[in-house]
C-alpha cells in the first residue's frame, strides 16, 4: 500500500516533528526490511541461475553429441540396408532407438530446466520491482521529512524577524525597490554605452575631416607661432 495515504493522515493530523515519525516508524521499517529481503532473494536466485546455466550448457553439449551419433548411425543403417545387410541394419536401428530415447530424456530435462530458469528470471524481475517500488515509497517519506526540515529552518527566520504586521508586503516592497534600482542601473549602463558609441561616431567623422576638427595638434600651434613671428 502506498505510504501517501499515511503521510496525508499524519500531516492533516498536524504532525510536524522532523523525521520519519510523520508516519508510523513501523511502516518505514517494513519497507526497508522488504528491500533487504528482496535483495537477499535476488542474490540467492542469481547463484541458482549460475548453477542452472552450468547444467544447461552440459545438457546442450550432450544432446549435440547424441544428435551427431544418431545421424552417424542413420547413415550407417542406410548403407547396411543398401548392401542388403538387413540384420546389421536392424542392430544399428536398435542402437539409434536407444540413443533417441536418451536424447529425449535429456531434451525434457533441458525443457524443465528452461522453465525453471524462466521462473527464476520472472522472480528476480518481481523482486526488483518490489525494491524500486519500496524505494520510491521511502523517498516520499524522506521528501516530506526534508521539506519539513527546510521549512522549519526558514520559519525560524520568520520568528527571528518577528511576524510583524504586513511583513510580506514590506518585504515585497523592498524587493521591488531593489529590482527597480537594478533596472535603473541597467538603463543607465545602456545610456552610457550608447553615449560611448556616439563618441566613437564623432571620432570616426573627425578622422574623415568631417565636423568638429577636435583639439589642435602641436604642429598647428607651431605653424601659428611661426606665422606670428614672421
Amino acid at each position: 500500500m502506498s505510504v501517501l495515504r499515511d503521510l496525508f493522515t499524519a500531516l492533516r493530523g498536524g504532525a510536524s516533528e522532523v523525521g520519519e515519525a510523520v508516519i508510523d516508524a513501523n511502516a518505514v521499517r517494513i519497507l526497508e526490511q522488504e528491500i533487504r529481503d528482496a535483495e537477499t532473494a535476488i542474490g540467492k536466485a542469481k547463484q541458482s541461475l549460475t548453477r542452472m546455466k552450468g547444467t544447461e550448457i552440459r545438457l546442450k553439449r550432450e544432446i549435440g553429441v547424441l544428435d551427431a551419433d544418431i545421424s552417424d548411425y542413420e547413415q550407417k543403417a542406410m548403407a547396411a540396408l543398401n548392401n542388403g545387410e538387413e540384420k546389421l541394419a536392424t542392430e544399428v536401428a536398435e542402437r539409434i532407438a536407444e540413443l533417441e530415447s536418451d536424447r529425449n530424456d535429456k531434451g525434457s530435462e533441458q525443457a524443465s530446466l528452461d522453465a525453471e530458469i524462466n521462473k527464476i528470471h520472472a522472480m528476480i524481475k518481481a523482486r526488483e520491482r518490489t525494491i524500486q517500488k519500496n524505494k520510491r515509497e521511502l523517498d516520499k517519506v524522506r521528501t516530506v521529512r526534508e521539506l519539513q526540515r527546510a521549512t522549519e529552518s526558514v520559519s525560524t527566520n520568520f520568528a527571528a524577524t518577528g511576524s510583524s504586521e504586513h511583513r510580506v508586503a514590506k518585504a515585497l516592497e523592498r524587493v521591488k525597490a531593489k529590482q527597480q534600482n537594478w533596472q535603473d542601473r541597467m538603463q543607465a549602463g545602456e545610456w552610457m554605452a550608447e553615449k560611448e558609441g556616439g563618441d566613437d561616431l564623432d571620432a570616426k567623422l573627425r578622422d574623415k575631416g568631417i565636423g568638429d576638427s577636435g583639439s589642435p595638434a602641436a604642429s598647428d600651434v607651431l605653424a601659428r607661432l611661426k606665422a606670428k613671428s614672421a
Partner: protein
Amino acid sequence: MTLDELSYRLNGYTGEEGTTFDALVTDDGILEVVCSNNDEFPIHVTQTETQLLSVTALFTQAEVQPGKVNEVNEAFLRLSPAVPLSSIGLQGGTYILFGSMAVSTRFEVIAHELEVQAENAVDVLEVVEHLLA
C-alpha cells in the same frame, strides 16, 4: 554533487539573467541560498537519495487575514500549474514554494531553477498580497 559543492559553485556564479547567489550550508546541513533578484525570501535546499528539494517559505496561515484562508488556498491551487518550474504547497502551517530536481541535475540547470524560483516567489506573493494581514 553535495550541498557543499553546490554552495561553493553558486557563490562564484552569475545566472543567465544576471542573478548572483549568496549560498551557505547551515549547521543542520541545509543549504541556504539568497538570490540577488529576491533577497527577502531565501531558498533552502536539501537532498534525499534521489532528489534535490528547494523550498521558499512564503508566509504562515497566521499571516492570512481572518476568514481568507480558503481564498488563499483556492488562489494557490489555481495558480500552481501556471508557475514555471515551482509548485506551491503547505508544510505545517507555512505556505511554501518548492522545486524538486533529480540529484544528477547539471549545476547550470540547478542555478537556473533557483533563479526562477526566487522570481516566482515575488510573482506568487503579489497575487495574494491583498489577502494577507
